[in-house]
């Protein structure tokens, strides 16, 4: 009896195992590399395709890719309804022009999710033929483990002249980060200038109160005080909120949305940046003595209600709602801040936002710290037959499509995609001039004045031209304004001009990477820093608490990390 039971129990448990194994067979593996026609190096057609930027391959080359997901559901109800990650305006264009087709190895949303997929692919040992890695340390690991292809020759032969010119305009700041032992191992993305922090104010409120454009810190404070006290927006006494501020990064990200970078740099403080202390040594900006007066100022502003009193608990949606809903009339952003508040025009046609490069220091200048010149890298798997395909796609996307494509029907498709906010391109990097956003503003203004768009350089500019033209016509005819047209014009023309004509001092942080100790200690230090920011600004602690923060920051590992950073800099 007992042995019979034991037997059946054992059978049950074995069956359990068998079921779990049996389930595994009915699946497919999508990570298999694409099969490609063998390139015959003697065939002149292949040879030409492999050594020039825009020549199509004689046979279709397929590559697997880890790509950032695009929001194709936004295309519902349009002619592009059936588009997906491997069949959309961009992939069809690449297929047509180069005879190259993508195959998705994995896709995920930009940011943490995508980065996680990349790490998974790396530890899993099957990286796709082409992918974008999110930081330099990942690139370095890939290089050290010999997983990625040398792209030096491919770049020399297949990058178009314009692409090379763009990279050269950064004077090696970008391309050299991807060079290891003299070999180019990746195509880095170029981060165009974020521009200085820009203060956005409700112009219609200022007009109502008869306030002049702000220049100094005192002007800025005065305007916000009047906004809060005199309630020009009709929110009811005491309901108007001051400056809208981000809670996680009060400052410290170049071009950061809702960040108070300008106020900190006014006092010579560079929060969260590794700065040169003047003697060639790197120091961490957040623990420098210049921080204290800046924080004292902010604590004072908070006390007076000039900073949103609930900023510490707001989400990003809340912040946006305060501004578009007319509860607050001031925030600090960057030159594309008009996009942040584009909806306010829909809600209130009388709302007018104006941008200011303020607060300025005594000499009328604003200091900005620049961002990481290259944050992500396009890499090709070692062993992929056509490493040059990646360069060719990049050349097509960032040169040919932008500067040379003249077919209006083709451009219309890209314009449509842009208007639905759908990306679609398999390759999520960007290669553009550092000063891209104000580079062509003069030509654009000229074209808008004369109505002659033939001098515009890029396809993007031509698309933008139509949108701006429509916006200007709407103003002229007193019609209802389109929020996209307004936001585009205000950022790319009005604010771009403003920035171009302002006195901007650029400061380059010296280090953007990570060091070994950071893995363990940085999260704690960042948390300490965040708490210090919030506590001092909200007045829970006096600004003197900054000194004790600095000493405990150093003790908790800050000093170790600073030493490591300096070592990394000198070892380069």
């Amino acid at each position, binding site marked *: 009896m007992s042995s019979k039971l*034991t037997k059946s129990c054992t059978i049950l448990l074995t069956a359990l195992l068998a079921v779990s194994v049996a389930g*595994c067979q009915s*699946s497919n*593996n999508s990570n298999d590399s694409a099969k490609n026609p063998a390139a015959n190096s003697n065939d002149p057609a292949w040879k030409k395709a492999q050594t020039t930027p825009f020549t199509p391959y004689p046979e279709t080359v397929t590559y697997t890719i880890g790509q950032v997901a695009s929001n*194709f559901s936004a295309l519902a109800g349009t002619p592009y309804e059936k588009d997906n990650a491997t069949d959309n305006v961009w992939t069809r264009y690449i297929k047509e022009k180069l005879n190259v087709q993508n195959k998705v*190895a994995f896709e995920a949303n*930009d940011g943490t999710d995508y980065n996680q997929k990349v790490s998974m692919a790396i530890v*899993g040992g099957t990286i796709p033929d082409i992918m974008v890695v999110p930081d330099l340390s990942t690139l370095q690991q890939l290089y050290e483990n010999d997983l990625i292809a040398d792209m030096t020759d491919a770049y020399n032969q297949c990058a178009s002249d314009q692409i090379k010119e763009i990279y050269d305009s950064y004077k090696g700041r970008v391309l050299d980060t991807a060079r290891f032992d003299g070999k180019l191992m990746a195509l880095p993305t170029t981060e165009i200038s974020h521009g200085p922090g820009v203060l956005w104010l409700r112009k219609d409120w200022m007009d109502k109160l008869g306030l002049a454009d702000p220049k100094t810190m005192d002007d800025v404070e005065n305007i916000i005080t009047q906004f809060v006290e005199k309630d020009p927006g009709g929110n009811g006494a005491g309901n108007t909120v001051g400056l809208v501020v981000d809670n996680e990064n009060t400052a410290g990200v170049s071009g950061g949305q809702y960040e108070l970078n300008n106020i900190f740099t006014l006092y010579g403080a560079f929060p969260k940046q590794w700065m040169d202390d003047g003697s060639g040594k790197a120091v961490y900006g957040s623990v420098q003595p210049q921080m204290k007066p800046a924080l004292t100022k902010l604590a004072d502003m908070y006390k007076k209600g000039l900073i949103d009193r609930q900023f510490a608990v707001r989400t990003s949606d809340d912040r946006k709602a305060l501004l578009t809903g007319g509860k607050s009339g001031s925030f600090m952003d960057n030159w594309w801040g008009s996009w942040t508040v584009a909806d306010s025009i829909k809600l209130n046609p009388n709302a007018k936002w104006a941008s200011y490069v303020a607060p300025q220091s005594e000499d009328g200048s604003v200091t900005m710290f620049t961002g990481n010149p290259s944050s992500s890298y396009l890499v090709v798997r070692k062993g992929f037959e056509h490493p040059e395909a990646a360069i060719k796609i990049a050349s097509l996307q960032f040169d040919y499509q932008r500067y040379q494509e003249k077919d209006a029907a083709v451009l219309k498709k890209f314009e449509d995609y842009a208007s639905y906010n759908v990306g679609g391109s398999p390759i999520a990097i960007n290669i553009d001039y550092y000063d891209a956003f104000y580079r062509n503003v003069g030509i654009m203004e000229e074209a808008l004045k004369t109505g002659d768009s033939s001098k515009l350089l890029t396809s993007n500019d031509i698309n933008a031209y139509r949108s701006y033209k429509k916006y200007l016509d709407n103003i002229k005819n007193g019609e209802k304004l389109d929020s996209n047209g307004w936001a585009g014009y205000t950022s790319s023309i009005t604010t771009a001009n403003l920035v171009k004509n302002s006195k901007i001092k650029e400061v380059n942080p010296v280090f953007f990477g990570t060091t070994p100790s950071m893995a363990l200690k940085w999260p704690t230090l960042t948390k300490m820093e965040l708490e210090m920011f919030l506590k001092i600004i909200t007045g829970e602690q006096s600004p003197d608490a900054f000194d004790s923060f600095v000493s405990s920051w150093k003790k908790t590992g800050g000093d170790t990390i600073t030493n490591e950073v300096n070592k990394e800099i000198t070892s380069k």
Partner: protein
Amino acid sequence: MVSIFPVNFTLSSYEKLLSDSQFWRSFMISVERVVLGLIVNMMLMILAAYPLSKSSKQFRAQKVYMNIVIFAMLFSGGLIPTFMVVKQLHLLDSIWALILPGAVPIANVILLMNAFRAVPKSLEEAATIDGASQWRILSTIYVPVVLPTIATVTLFTIVGHWNDYFSALVYINKTSNYPLQTYIQQLSVDVQNITDPQKLIEYSKISNRTLNAAKIVISTLPLLLIYPFMQKYFVTGIVVGSVKE
């Protein structure tokens, strides 16, 4: 003025949602996952819990298996080793990657095992005398008697499968194959790590808070509908006995 009734009440978000094909696709994937997952989980859990509920007199290796089970409950392989296993079994990107790694939830097995243990031995003995096999004892006596526990475990399983977003994030490579909760998790885009102006401009254009709220409401509805049906087992199960001693 703010009063009890909302001003400018609108259902436009829900209307818009009806036309969002990806939302409904993900919805159906979640439903599929719950149904398949429930079948697999329940079968394996009952089949595992029943033998484990026997005393070591009846089932000599019971202690050994029990220790294995407890060990697996306390120590897991970790994210990356589990990922490697799933990958090498070629499960990536299939619905089985969401079901099989968690096919035997041990906490629930122990719950069921204890319920089986609480069943009076005399029931089994009576059935054995009447000539019932172990399979028959399990299916016609034990399972019906522990129905309340099974209902509880069923609920745990359904909620677990429905709400799990993380496994799809790791094991599914195409966003169009995401189940509902992963799809919803994607709505809160993490802009923190993005510094490229081109992308940031794109993100600052997006603002569809009401639409996202509607999606969340719809996603909780199926669970809300399941609770009332389970309710009756919770209430009756506790009072109904099967043996008088």
